[in-house]
Structures are given as C-alpha cells and as structure tokens.
C-alpha cells in the first residue's frame, strides 16, 4: 500500500534526486508487528516532576532503556517530555530547551511524547502554560523528520501521570501502532481502565463487533482486533456478503449480514454477539457511505442516506447498547469520524455533517457509558490509501496525500491501530475524545 513515489525517494538515486530538487521525501513508516521492540532505541525522559520520575519508573518496568540525561551522540528511540507541573509560561523553557538538542539524535521513526495537564481549571498563568504545550507540540511535530512523530497526553485534574489511560496512551504513542498519528493530543479524563496482562494481546477474551467490515478500513479493523486477541463479529450489508465472509473466515470470526440502518440493527447485533459468542464488549461503528455533491445540487436521497447510515444508525444502535444488560462490563464504543467533519471538504456537506455528528454524539454519550466503566471515542482518519481514495483523480490524490507532516497517505491499518487502542481496557480513562489519524494533516487544525 506504500505509494510508488514514497518507495522511489526512500533510497538510492531517487533519494539523491529528490533531495537535490527539494521534493518531499516521505519516510517509510515503521508499522506494528507483534513481538517487535516498542521503540527503536533508548528513551529520554525529560522533566523534574514526580510524574516524570513515575513515568521513568514505569518505562523501566517495561524493560525499556531509559535515560534521565541525554548521552551525547546516542541515537534515541524517543523523548518523553513530562510537563505536568507547569505553573506559568516561563516554566516551559527549562525542560523544553533541555530536550531540544536531543531531537538531533532521534532515530528514524522516533517518538516525542509530551505529558501535561489540561488547561482548564487552573490559574490564568497555569492555563497559559498548559495551553502553550498545545502550540509547542503541534509545531514540533511539523519539524520532525524521517517518520518521527510528536503527540501529547493531557491529564485531567486529579489524574496521575501513571494512570492506566496515561500509560496506555504513552505506550500507543511510543509504539509503531501510532505510525500515522502525528501532532495529536489525547485527553485522559479519569483514572479508569486497566493495563493489559499481555501487551501483544490487549483484547484477549473480548468480543468485538465491527460494522462495514467487508473491505477497506473495516476489514483492517477486523484483522487488527483479531490480532490483538478479540473474537470478531464482522457486519456489513447483505450485498457485500461475499467479501464479508472472506474477512470473517480470515479472522476466525462470524459474519453478520445486516443493514445497520434497519430499526432492529442494534438488537440483532446484540443477539448475534451474545448468542454466538456469549458476550459483547466492543462495538466499532465503521460503516459509512459518501454521496458527494455540491450543496447547491444536493437532493433528498443523497442527503438523507448519508445522514441515516453515518450517524442516525449509530445513534439507534447505541440506544440499544445502552439499554442492554449485556453491554455493561467496561464496554467500549469507537466510531469512525473523518477530518472532513473537522475541516470541511468541498462537495461533502452531507458527509461532513454526518461525521461532525459522530463527534458530537461521542462527546454526549461518554457520560452515559461512564456508569458502567465504559468509554466511547471517535477516530478521525485523514487521507488513507483505500479503494475509495484510489478513485480520486491522480493530481488531486497526489496533493491530498502529501499535505501532512508525514508527506504520505496512511494505511487502513493505521486507523485500525488507533481504534484497537481506544477499544482496549487501558483506554478506560479516555472517553468522549476524537483522535485524528491523519499524519498531522495541514488543513483543519
């Protein structure tokens, strides 16, 4: 799935030519394989707070090579910048400038992760410092090269730097699972959640439903959840049943041919999961359609079908899930939104409305799931290399896929990895959030 250009400029003559001409030089991103080392080298933990010490200790407990002070010339797998004790903007300088020279030593596909506090609730000076991390991190992410990424963890008041959600997010951001997540923050709102017993199978024992699983991103989600240990119920419309059966057989799960816009879709999903597999832990709302048209030319059927499938159906299914006694043991819902719903996209007023709707739904549903230890989040993919985006005209596609910090399109697996993380027990303290998987797309913040 790596595009030809990226392959061409990643080595040999192609690399030299691209360099001389000043052409974009997207890196070959390191993707997750079970059993691979978490990072490509030692980790430098910068910061002097209790949280920094606790994070360093946690990383050591994961058998990682941890430095509290940079060793000159040593290649680093990543830098963890712990800024959870900022009181005023001036507090930023010392840790940030101490970490700065080490950026030169960052290995290809290296990682920078900031850990700081959510801005709201503190003094104006503290809020300014904390909000400053936002601009700092997003800018730094744009400066990183060679497949390196920068992402941040925001701790809510009372949440420690080593809360399960914080450590879960830290592992995700450091790992190759977050290859196409760049310049993003995840907010850990509570100390809920639980780190996995086996980091290679964090979804072991879980039963997960994936809608739209017959192809593309949905099929990748099914494969990834299965790889992480879940039993997968693959759902798609009856007309896609042949591809669905292939996916279900590949992931050793079951196929449920179901139009999610049916009124009884939620009940049928619950019946199938509980009847066949004894439980239901995770629902991934991935199914979605596009019916693009400029608003001036929009008609009823294009508008209503997109709204119904992409958001109304999810709301109906969630109602059934929330009412079900079978969805009460730390349940997880993850919805696929889109950067179109954040930044807008010409010709996609209907689609963007539906995907904006998904983000609103996620935020408002989070408190309803909290009482059962549940969480609901959305993942917003940017430009992902799929059959759908392969149909975009060449020039448009080439611009779209280069317009991000990693200068390439993501893979369906990249979206799936983010979803698998949010579906895991570790992500219990993260809810109502939208995580972008877009390589830090230049448009839409």
């Amino acid at each position, binding site marked *: 799935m790596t595009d030809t250009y990226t392959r061409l400029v990643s080595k040999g003559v192609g690399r030299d030519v691209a360099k001389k001409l000043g052409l974009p030089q997207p890196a070959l991103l390191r993707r997750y394989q079970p059993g691979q080392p978490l990072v490509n080298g030692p980790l430098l933990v910068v910061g002097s707070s209790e949280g920094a010490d606790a994070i360093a200790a946690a990383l050591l407990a994961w058998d990682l090579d941890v430095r509290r002070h940079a060793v000159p010339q040593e290649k680093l797998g990543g830098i963890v910048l712990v800024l959870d004790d900022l009181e005023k903007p001036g507090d930023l300088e010392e840790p940030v400038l101490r970490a700065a020279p080490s950026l030169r030593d960052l290995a290809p596909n290296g990682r920078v992760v900031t850990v700081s506090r959510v801005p709201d609730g503190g003094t104006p000076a503290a809020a300014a410092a904390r909000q400053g991390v936002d601009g700092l991190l997003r800018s730094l992410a744009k400066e990183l090269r060679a497949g390196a990424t920068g992402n941040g963890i925001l701790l809510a008041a009372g949440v420690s730097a080593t809360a399960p959600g914080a450590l879960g997010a830290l592992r995700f951001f450091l790992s190759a699972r977050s290859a196409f997540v760049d310049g993003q923050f995840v907010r850990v709102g509570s100390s809920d959640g639980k780190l996995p017993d086996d980091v290679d199978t964090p979804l072991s024992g879980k039963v997960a439903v994936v809608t739209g699983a017959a192809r593309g991103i949905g099929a990748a989600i099914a494969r990834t959840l299965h790889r992480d240990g879940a039993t997968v119920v693959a759902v798609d419309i009856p007309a896609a049943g042949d591809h669905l*059966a292939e996916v279900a*057989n590949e992931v*050793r799960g*079951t*196929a449920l041919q*179901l139009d999610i816009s*049916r009124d009884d879709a939620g009940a049928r999903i619950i019946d199938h999961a509980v009847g*066949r597999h004894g439980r239901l832990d995770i629902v991934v709302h991935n199914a979605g359609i596009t019916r693009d048209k400029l608003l001036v030319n929009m008609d009823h059927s294009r508008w209503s079908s997109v709204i119904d499938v992409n958001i109304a159906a999810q709301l109906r299914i969630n109602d059934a899930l929330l009412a079900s006694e079978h969805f009460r043991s730390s349940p997880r819902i993850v919805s696929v939104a889109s950067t179109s719903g954040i930044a807008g996209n010409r010709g996609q007023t209907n689609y963007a409305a539906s995907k904006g709707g998904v983000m609103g739904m996620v935020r408002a549903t989070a408190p309803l799931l909290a009482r059962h230890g549940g969480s609901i989040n959305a993942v917003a993919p940017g430009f992902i290399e799929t059959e759908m985006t392969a149909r975009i005209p060449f020039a448009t596609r080439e611009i779209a896929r280069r317009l991000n910090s990693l200068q390439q399109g993501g893979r369906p697996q990249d979206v799936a990895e983010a979803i698998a993380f949010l579906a895991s027990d570790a992500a219990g303290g993260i809810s109502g959030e939208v995580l972008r998987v877009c390589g830090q797309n230049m448009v839409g913040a």
Partner: protein
Amino acid sequence: MSIDGQSVNGPEEPAVSRAASSAQAVHRAVVVGGNRIPFARTGGAYTKSSNQDMLTAALDGLIARFGLQDERIGEVAAGAVLKHSRDFNLTREAVLGSALSAETPAYDLQQACATGLETVLGLANKIKLGQIESAIAGGVDSASDAPIAVSEGLREVLLDLSRAKTLPQRLQILARLRPKDLAPDAPNTGEPRTGLSMGEHQALTTAQWKITREAQDELAYNSHRNLAAAYDTGFFDDLLTPYRGLTRDSNLRADTSLDKLASLKPVFGRNLGAEATMTAGNSTPLTDGASTVLLASEEWADQHDLPKLATILDGEAAAVDFVHGKDGLLMAPAFAVPRLLARNGLTLDDIDYFEIHEAFAGTVLSTLAAWEDEEFGRTRLGLDGAFGKVDRSRLNVNGSSLAAGHPFAATGGRIVASLAKMLHEKGAADGRPALGLISICAAGGQGVVALLEAH
C-alpha cells in the same frame, strides 16, 4: 389396500411424540442454518464458475456465518447432477478449498434433482444414530460449465489406441474414425429410456391432469411475487451470500405480471393434440448455483452456541414406472408424501408449510390434482377416497424454483434451509411446533420428500 397401486400403510396409533417415533431415533438431527449463493441463469454470472468454485463459495459463506473455521465437521455430503469425471471427489475437494478443518471427511452423492434433499436425509440419519454430531449437506450444479464428452466412436478409438503397440496397429485403428465421431456428446435432460425431454414428459402429465395454462401462469406469478417479497423483507439476509456480483437470483422477475406470462408461446407439448400450455414462464430454466445446510445434534449445536431452527423428522423416497406410461415422469412425490405422512400419523391438514419443488408449474399442479382426485386416491394410493387438499396459502410462500431457478442438486439445500427458518419463526410466533413438508421430483421417475418440525 390396492394391489395395483403404491399402498399407504399408516401406524395403528398416532404417535405421541413424532420426533421420538422416528425410526430408531436416539438423537435429534436439527437444522442450524444454511447458506447458498444466488442462483444464476445459465450462461449468466457464473458462466466461468465450476461446480467446485460454487460449492466452495457456498461452504465458505456457511463457515463465516456460523464461525466454523478450522472446525472438524462430522461429515460433508454434496453432489452435482451434471458432473465432470475429474470431479469424482467434488465435495472433498471443496472442503479442502474451504476454511473447514482439512480433517473433515466428505462424500459425493447423486440422485438427480433429489440429490440435495437426499444428502440432508442421509446425514440427518447418521446424526440420529449418533454416528456423527455435525454435518453439512449440499449440492451444486452448473449447466454453463457442463461436461462435454467425446462421441462413443471416438472414445473407443482413443481407448484402443492407448492399447496398440505398433505403428501399423495405430494406423488401422485411426482409419476407423468417421467425421460424425468428432461431434461432441453434450449432456441433455432427456430420459434415456424414452428419449423424451423432461418438459415433454411433463407436458403429457399436465395434459393428463387437465391443468390449465392460467393455473400454471398463476403459480409462476406467485412464485416470483413471493420470492421478490422475501428478498425485500430481508428473509434471505442470513440464508444467502452474494457471489460474482449477484446479490439475488438472476431469474427472479419481480415485475412480472399475469399478462406478461400469458403472452409467452408454449415450448413443450406442442404436438400432443390438446392445447399446449407449458411456456418458458411456467417452466424452470437451466440454472447455475450451490447451496449448503448445517445439520447437528442438539448437543453439538448447544456446545457451539448455534441456533436450532428445525428438526429433520423423517424422509421418504418413491419411484414410478413412467417408462410404460403408468404414471407421469415427475409424479413420484404423489406417492411418497402419502406414505410419509401416514407413517407419521399426519394428514395434509397438519402441515403449516408446503415446499413443493416447481420443476414446472404443471408438476406442482398435477401432484395437487392427483391428491384431490378420488379415483387416484382409491386405485393408486389404496385409500378410501382422495388423499387431500393442500391449502394454497401455505404453498411455497417465499417463492420456489420457477422464480429462483433450479440448479438441480442445489435445490434441496435451498428449500431445507429456507423452510427450517420459516418453521422456526412460525413456531416461535404460534408457540407450537410448526410442521413443514418438502417434495422434490427427480429424473428417472423418482421423488424424495421430507418432514421437518420447528425446534
């Protein structure tokens, strides 16, 4: 009881529990569910698909639906009517190409159009006897990818050539070849003993039972209408997996009308003297497709958290002497059903759903007419009068072969899976076990029928 006819011997006392009274039943054999691919008119979407391709696709859809990957099924049985000689192990090869465990045994079976239903009955009997716990029955046929044989003359020459030892011997053998020997021998649906096609045979029967054109067209119309409605309500969502771009049976004409059907020219029975009534609209076209049914003991279904839709209660086969014209070629079910129901202490009135395979509309209507005929009942079935009347509102309620098409060996599996689902739904709605009857006629004057009960 008639000496001349095929007398019906019922038990003295009606059985208390039908499932328990089934011969030697130790276990129940239940239908868990089924899967088929849409049926395609010959020369259509599946022109390039072999029997093995289609059967494997139907199996893989079933495996996906019920999570049977790597499962060692007790036994898989399927078959095809039109079969290449290379496909001697068709079912086993399909199993090996599927997601099932490679340690799943399989065998082929062939009983003309009754192949599919007979695989269900044979495997259900093994489950009842406790020989196996799970089974997949099925069938497949392709009239598009039909085997074509060399002529008998060429075949003999080729075989003799392979045995010849010297060049002169070989030349001598080759000299026997005549141009006509080079013409291929394509399969046909003609009866070897009469030379008549199935359609011409049915035309005789249709005329004998005085079945009108209107009645046949109406049956065909209902078949299309019922099948289209079943698709629209999502009835097939868990019975069918699309294949090669088809999501519905390609023969289905949801927009057909009695007027359209009435406008078609007769194709069979045009030289019988009487008015010809059988058209392409009220006869089933050649079709490609495959179907599968998952059968299990109750225990196996429970252990695997799988549904139990219906119990296979009993089955019966019959055959008629059509060669000497005593009965119509496709009239064997008219004898099999009375015997089956009598053995189970039932009458037609006890049946909630009738699934009578629509080889031709005339076949179904001739069978119903025979059952309603006092003379037939007395002289041929050995009863006191007519066997009985089928409530037409219970007949082929989700359509049948006239609309869906009829890939010979795949029809049995189509009907068993659909009927099991219908019975299960009706049983759940009515709070009593609904009963269903399947009747399938077959070439060679044979027929196989079966009785299912909602679980």
